[in-house]
């Protein structure tokens, strides 16, 4: 059985964790929730840093914990990036990178004949070659976090765990690291569990999402589908909305626009400097989507797509309703007033046109 099966139960004073998860074998799974929701505790249970007596954990078929056994952390083939930079201050950057490598010789050779190659690849991916001789106290916060990511990667882990790796950094440093994380995301062939309470990181990086609330997983699934659930609108940032994976298909240099294609259609967005063929993500908020029964002429809105109403539900205010539509296979959420929904006679299965006022290109 592939992927990660994790079942943990903890009952601490003032906090309880009770999850039973089946997570995919590849891609980035975001553990998303407010502080105190148990996401870090869950990650620590998976790493073996926290002991859950009745827990079970299987990673790609290997049992790391069940009733009979409990692998201590140092025997689990994982990589862990802590929230605050946690480099060893008494070692240089290279010393830090080698620390784990020297101790994982056996498991590394299974994957790569030359463990040094994994180290080299990690150094290259995170762009830290010029820092190798420095001591950690001579690095910026962002550089330290890149080194600790490389240190975890160099181990050739079967599972990568990151506990809010950007939370301790200011906005600028975050923007500096996110491109590296995106590169990592594309290069990675192992699962990455990424704990975060920052919606923009989740929207940019996650393929799957587990939403935690008070120690329980309230929603879990592929990011796009989960964000488009009407029974449990997940507010990722300022408002509910969907995130779609797309590819840059065309660039209009005269107007500084780019056309991105997603399964089912394409959208014009502000040109973000990507090349044609680059994968990008777009976020469409429900409040920026309006609905028309016919294609509309004479509008300033650039993006108008044919769609089908799939599901309708009430919203947080009785005057509003939330709609899920499909543009081809891709979901889009729209927020309308109840009055317009009724006025247009909207019902599931109805073909309509969606007008999208704003599309955010997120990496």
């Amino acid at each position, binding site marked *: 059985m592939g992927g990660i099966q994790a079942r943990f139960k903890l009952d601490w004073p003032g906090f309880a964790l009770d999850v039973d998860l089946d997570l995919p074998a590849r891609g980035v799974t975001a553990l998303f929730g407010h502080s105190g929701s148990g996401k870090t505790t869950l990650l620590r249970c998976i790493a073996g840093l926290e002991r859950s007596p009745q827990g079970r954990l299987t990673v790609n078929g290997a049992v790391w914990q069940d009733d009979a056994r409990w692998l201590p952390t*140092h025997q689990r083939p994982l990589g862990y990036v802590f929230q605050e930079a*946690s480099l*060893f*201050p008494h070692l240089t950057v290279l010393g830090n990178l080698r620390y784990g490598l020297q101790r994982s010789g056996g498991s590394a050779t299974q994957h790569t004949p030359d463990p040094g190659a994994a180290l080299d690849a990690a150094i290259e991916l995170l762009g830290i070659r010029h820092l190798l001789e420095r001591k950690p106290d001579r690095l910026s916060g962002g550089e330290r976090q890149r080194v600790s990511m490389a240190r975890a990667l160099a181990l050739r882990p079967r599972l990568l765990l990151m506990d809010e790796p950007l939370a301790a950094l200011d906005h600028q440093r975050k923007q500096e690291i996110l491109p590296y994380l995106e590169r990592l995301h594309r290069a990675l062939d192992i699962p990455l569990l990424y704990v975060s309470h920052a919606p923009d990181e989740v929207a940019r990086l996650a393929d799957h999402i587990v939403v935690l609330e008070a120690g329980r997983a309230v929603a879990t699934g592929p990011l796009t589908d989960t964000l488009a659930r009407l029974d449990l609108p997940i507010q990722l940032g300022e408002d509910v909305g969907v995130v779609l994976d797309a590819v840059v298909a065309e660039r209009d240099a005269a107007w500084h626009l780019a056309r991105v294609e997603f399964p089912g259609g394409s959208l014009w967005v502000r040109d973000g400097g990507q090349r044609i063929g680059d994968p990008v993500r777009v976020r469409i908020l429900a409040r920026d989507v309006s609905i028309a029964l016919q294609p509309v002429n004479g509008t300033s809105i650039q993006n108008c797509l044919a769609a089908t109403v799939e599901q309708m539900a009430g919203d947080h205010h009785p005057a509003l309703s939330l709609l899920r539509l499909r543009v081809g296979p891709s979901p889009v959420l729209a927020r309308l007033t109840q009055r317009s929904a009724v006025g247009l006679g909207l019902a599931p299965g109805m073909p309509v046109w969606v007008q999208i006022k704003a599309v955010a290109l997120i990496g």
Partner: protein
Amino acid sequence: MFLNDSDLQAIWLTIRLAGIVTLILLLLGTPIAWWLARSKAWWKGPLSAVVALPLVLPPSVLGFYLLLAMGPNGPVGQFTTALGLGLLPFTFWGLVIASVFYSLPFMVQPLQTAFESIGERPLEVAATLRASPLDAFFTVAVPLALPGFLTASILTFAHTVGEFGVVLMIGGNIPGVTRVASVQIYDHVEALEYLQAHRLSAVMLVFSFVVLLVLYAWRPKPVRGA
């Protein structure tokens, strides 16, 4: 010559005693300090109190109990006799054992503070990098606690050099065997050899000052957490 032969002998004996005690306490105090820094067991409190006892106990009280324990009717004495080692009081090794107890807090407390200030995180990081707990102790905890080790060793050495009451109770005053510098000074004063007492005292004073100077002025900078 500034110091006579018996003074030099006393100084050499003192250095030997303090050196051996420091080495033994490094081996003995480190695990105790490590355990005290990380345990949450209920008897951590009682053990801390026992370790700190020599700080407040009059040395003569400590010496008295140790003398009884190591004497012919004491449990330690019967044990050493059974092993064919004879009795420990009034021997150099008796003095070593007594000094280990006497200086224990001076090794354990700085080490415990050093270990506590490292915190849990670096060891967790080491574990995620495949280091076993013992491996992590030697490659992460010890290097990070190095300033603590230095402070603890200097304090232990200096404190053992300054010991008097326990020596008198356990070791008495045998030249070359148990007559350490502090006892030698006492002897000089008893014999009204004030000049000799002055000289040896001056040596001790300078030594103590230099040790403390090293400790405070040239204290190694703690490695900054990154």
